[in-house]
């Protein structure tokens, strides 16, 4: 190492000769190019750009040159150092890119690994189906009404024009609650959600627009198509001037909301004590749209090639029911309908056995997730 030359003697400085500078530069460039790792490059960097590197030393020698030679030498050394630094940065970037690419390769995982650390939960499809149907009407302005499951006979039967001798009021169909000392308690497990309709009329001033989803009970043994505990949704609309055409329109709207815009319903006369006129309601088969009827080449499992799916009962609220529930039948009329959620779930999702819906097997419920 030599100290800076302060004497300004016009000495020839060997290190600042052009050919020397070029050599130093070329050696540096060669060293960088030869560096095959970031560590090697670092070593080359120290050797060729560090304070003890030939170019750095040469740079220091510039001060010893006579003033007329300084500019020349300074330019040469500066250009050489610039080229060296540029090459270093380029090589650095190259090697870093190589390293990064290598690390990303090394960090690769098998993204096909399964993951079931915490299995997902699910709501029961009967619950979500019931909510989905109810929400169709909530969006139209209806309220959801609820009531007790152990219900007064009056609400379940009498108020609905089901006379005391009606077959539905026998132990063949209805669970009766014991009254103690062998007495009649006047309480049953509701056989439909219609008592909620009666309660709604008594609780509110007309107009009344409610849907009544809920659990109901009938004395059927559990088998592939029956269950003693099942779910219904019923609708009740009471207003001035409501007609069967309004009932039909409301049903059409519902099946369109649930099954698609081209859906429609069909009414067939039937009998229920609580409605008059009464009807059985069918909806167009949402799978075949009726195309399977009389077409043996295209049989439809969903509707048994009938073209229609039986949905439930409906009708204009019997004025006797209005009277019992405190609604003036001279001023108001209304319509009502109801159907079973289990049945709808069965034909909407191809459930083949009622028992699947009541046994609580997680393998059945889990795929239905949070909404339906």
């Amino acid at each position: 190492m030599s100290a800076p030359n302060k004497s300004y003697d016009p000495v020839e400085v060997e290190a600042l000769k052009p050919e020397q500078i070029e050599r130093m530069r070329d050696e540096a460039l060669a060293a960088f190019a030869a560096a095959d790792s970031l560590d090697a490059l670092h070593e080359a960097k120290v050797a060729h750009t560090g304070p003890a590197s030939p170019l750095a030393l040469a740079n220091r020698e510039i001060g010893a040159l006579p003033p007329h030679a300084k500019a020349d030498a300074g330019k040469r050394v500066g250009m050489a150092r610039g080229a060296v630094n540029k090459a270093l940065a380029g090589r650095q970037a190259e090697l870093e890119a190589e390293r990064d690419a290598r690390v990303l390769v090394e960090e690769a995982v098998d993204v096909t690994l399964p993951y079931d650390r915490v299995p997902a939960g699910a709501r029961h499809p009967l619950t979500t189906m019931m909510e989905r149907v109810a929400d169709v009407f909530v969006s139209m302005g209806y309220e959801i009404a609820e009531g007790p499951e152990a219900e007064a006979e009056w609400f379940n039967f009498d108020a609905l024009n089901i006379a005391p001798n009606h077959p539905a009021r026998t132990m063949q169909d209805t669970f009766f609650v014991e009254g103690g000392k062998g007495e009649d308690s006047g309480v049953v497990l509701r056989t439909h959600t219609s008592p909620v309709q009666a309660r709604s009329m008594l609780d509110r001033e007309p107009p009344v627009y409610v849907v009544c989803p809920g659990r109901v009970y009938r004395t059927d043994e559990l088998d592939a198509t029956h269950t003693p505990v099942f779910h219904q949704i019923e609708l009740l609309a009471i207003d001035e001037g409501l007609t069967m055409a309004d009932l039909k329109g409301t049903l059409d709207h519902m099946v369109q909301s649930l099954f698609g815009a081209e859906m429609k319903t069909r009414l067939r006369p039937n009998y229920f004590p609580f409605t008059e006129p009464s009807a059985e309601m069918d909806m167009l088969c949402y799978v075949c749209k009726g195309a399977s009827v009389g077409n043996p080449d295209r049989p439809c499992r969903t509707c048994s090639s009938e073209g229609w799916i039986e949905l439930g009962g409906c009708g204009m609220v019997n004025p006797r029911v209005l009277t019992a529930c405190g609604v003036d039948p001279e001023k108001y009329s209304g319509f009502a309908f109801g159907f079973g959620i289990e049945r709808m779930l069965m034909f909407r999702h191809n459930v083949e056995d009622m028992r699947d819906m009541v046994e609580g097997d997680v393998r059945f419920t889990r795929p239905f997730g949070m909404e339906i």
Partner: protein
Amino acid sequence: MRVPLSWLREYVDLPATETGRDVQAKLISAGLEVETVEQHGDGLKGPLVVGQVLTVEELEGFKKLIRFCTVDVGQANGTGEPQEIVCGARNFSVGDKVVVVLPGAELPGGFAISARKTYGKVSHGMICSSDELGMGEDGTHGIIVLPPEHEVGTDAIELLQLVDEVLDIAVTPDRGYCLSMRGVARETAIAYGLPLRDPALLDVPAPNAFGHPVKVADPFGCDRFTARTVTGLDPEARSPIWLTRRLQKAGMRPISLAVDVTNYVMLELGQPLHAYDRSRVQGAIGVRRAEQGERLTTLDGVTRELSTDDLVITDDRGPIGLAGVMGGANSEIDDTEGTTTEVVVEAAHFDSVSVARTARRHKLSSEASRRFERGVDPEAASAAAQRTVDLLVLLAGGTAEAGVTEIIAPSAPHTITVPADHPDKVAGVTYGRETVVRRLQQIGCDVYGQDELLVTVPSWRPDLTDPNDLAEEVIRLEGYENLPSTLPRPLPGHGLTERQRLHRRVGRALAGAGYVEALTYPFLGEAALDQLGLDAGDPRRTLVTLVNPLSDEEPALRTTLLPGLLGALRRNDGRGSHDLALFETGLVFRPTGEERIPERLPVDRRPSKADLAALDAALPRQPRHAAVVLAGAREQAGWWGKGRPSDWADAIQAARTVAGEYGVELTVRAEQHAPWHPGRCAALYALVDGTETLVGHAGELHPRVVKAMHLPERTCAAEVELDVLERAGQGMLAAPRIATFPVATQDVALVVDRAVPAADVEAALREGAGELLESVRLFDVYENAEQLGEGRKSLAYALRFRAEDRTLTVDEASAARDAAVALAGSRTGAVLRG
């Protein structure tokens, strides 16, 4: 009601091309539920002829006795030679007329007939049973033996009316008149716009005093009683083929001529009839309510204790029939010995409610009771009696006695006043007065008036009582399918109530936490409560019991969701799903003991507030609960590392999750409560109106319960009452203030007695730390007797401090921490771990 199309055509001139399916479609549209159309004789192809048995040779040496017969089939076989036929039946003799199917024919079901070798002989055809011809049961269990008058060689397909279509109609309770050919024919005629030949339009002699004496003591129960007598019946006379065939197609079994005739007329006119053997009726026929202690053996051979509500037919001896339900054995027509030569025919009209009650009381539903329950045309009674008499005279050579007994309680025809535009208003369609009047007349009403119609309903339609009933008639005949589709406009709604939203949120929150919803039956028995280990005095043992449970083992309603949910858990476990987290929300039934039996309220007006309150007071309390059960792994083991079994803490956390939806923070305390493990049971409390109130329990189940219920080991559960959480709810959440100054964190490890609840230590830390405390988090619990001493544990907490308005100094944070530790020390004996 089964309706043969050939029979229906007798009353309505349907176009010859109309098929059963065509008629079905028309009737369905008119409101008759035609469930099926049976195709009788489908695929049947002759020759099928009348034959006469000439010789019978018994073939022996086979498993059963076989007959080799020769049968005269006239020219039907082309040769006139006797036909050789092997037959396994034995209910015929030489000379009998039988039905023979010849080679080349095909029987229903694609059964082709050819000459074939059997039992060592060649059988050239078959002697047929009614079964083989698809005719239905005839009671003989053998081959058909025809009356002798039919000539050999006659086409039996025509003779036996084997080709027909039968409509099977499920008749709704309001359409009793359609339990007759007459009623279905009326609907058919209307549907096709064709005239009806009413079979009830018969000439009937006027009543007189010479008929069989009848005394009606209960004119409300029996408002009409017609009695006619036919004598000189030939006991040998048999029902003709046309009659038995119609009965068979209608689903009834031919029995004897007199019984067949009464059944036939019932099918034709809808009027149930009864024929008594006059020689077995002693004295006048009476109608009254049964007396205490009376008994009657009905035709089905069952001896019944009669109730004083039962309406009975009597003679001098006492009851001889359950009115409108079933006759008694003691006056039965003798159809086995064939000795009956004189019959008294009863055509009466009984109160539908009375018949329904009696039929139900005796669990005895008959063709007669089904009709009376739904309403029989009282005006058709005398015509039905006449028709019966006519047929008995015609078919059994009897003589109608001149006496005609007819007892009628006076009644006015039912009229309804209805605005002419009422059907329009119900339907939302403008039919117009003319259409309304025409339709009402079609169903048999007399209609008067212009804007206000005075409608007299026909005697066969007791179901028509109100204006809306008439509206339905008009609308159904105009076609439900022609109703337009319009939408009413309800007032703007408010969406779900807060309570309804919360119920949904609870379900979503639990499902989001990995629980799967089950909807279990709410039935249980004492055994389930015993398995849960509930004390004798436990309120969950106070049950709502059912009079008629499906299972005597489970006669009551649930007071807790756990038995049902644990049952579902066990079922899943048994089916190979072992890592389980289930939930259910639903009502439980908790009698208060204060339930009152309510009065029967009126239905002709709105009940009073007090009356309605009395109804509600009859009901048990029905709070809504939520419950979870867990077993197996909560987190699965896998390539990511170890799994984690579900435990008591998961159950408590589930309860917190539920409470969180209500904005309620639960206070957790160790308590002992069945069915939980005494050392792993948390009682959960919330503040309701400032009072700490029990919400539910959570933890691990008692090992005894696990064993008794055959549950997976360490099964955990939680159950909370949602209605309490609702009352504890905090309303709207106040948004937290977010301070932006840096946090100061201080960790402390406190050593306390093992029995000290962590919740107490944390509460003391919170209180002691004061306002600067942002959060406390317990991050470690450590027990080591050597380091901490026997019965001690270390609780390590991370305390985070922050001020809203400045950066805290180390001294401030330390001071707050020291205050927290000091209060924990004085409250719980906690000491800083050195």
